[in-house]
């Protein structure tokens, strides 16, 4: 099972990027909210990594 990790990168302009990996369902949103705190959200999106890696695995099985 993939480890659940949160990577936060804080720059010198007062912006942060949040990168969450390995989460399932609502716990992903909860972790995002924990790390966002009271900050304003500039961008928020689900990553396609999960879907891409799943389809790659299926393709390899077919070969």
């Amino acid at each position, binding site marked *: 099972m993939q*480890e*659940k*990790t*949160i*990577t*936060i*990168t*804080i*720059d*010198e*302009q*007062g*912006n*942060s*990027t*949040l*990168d*969450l*990996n*390995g*989460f*399932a*369902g609502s716990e*992903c*949103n909860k*972790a*995002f909210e*924990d*790390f*966002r*705190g*009271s*900050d*304003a*959200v*500039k*961008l*928020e*999106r*689900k*990553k396609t*990594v*999960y879907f891409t890696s799943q389809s790659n695995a299926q393709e390899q099985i077919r070969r």
Partner: protein
Amino acid sequence: MSKYGITITEVREEKFLVEALKEMGYEVEVHPDGAQLNSYYSEQERKTANIILRRAQLRGAYGDIGFARQPDGRLTLIADELDAYAGYGSKWLGRVQQLYKEKQTLAMARAKGYILKKREVIQTSEGQQVRLQFAVRR
């Protein structure tokens, strides 16, 4: 599921702002009810702030610099316009916010049981970045 987001730091928690300013080497005055900032020109409008750095320790500054609590809870920078050109403009504020966000994040993570796995300082063309990696306690 994985998620990605960009957030803009809003300074609201006095404790972490004071810690950030102290780490930058300043002596910090905290005034819950606000106190007056001294300006370069005596005829300038008198301003008040809740967290104050006095001019004597601000190299090249024209006046005191402060942070004032706003009705929406944010602590915003109050400074003489001239001080933006004396090294206390957006770049300086960005560094304050960076330290604030790191301290706030580490405290929140500790309180909520996240485990700090790695801390890195990265030099980029846009300045220094602090990268913190956490794992979830099983």
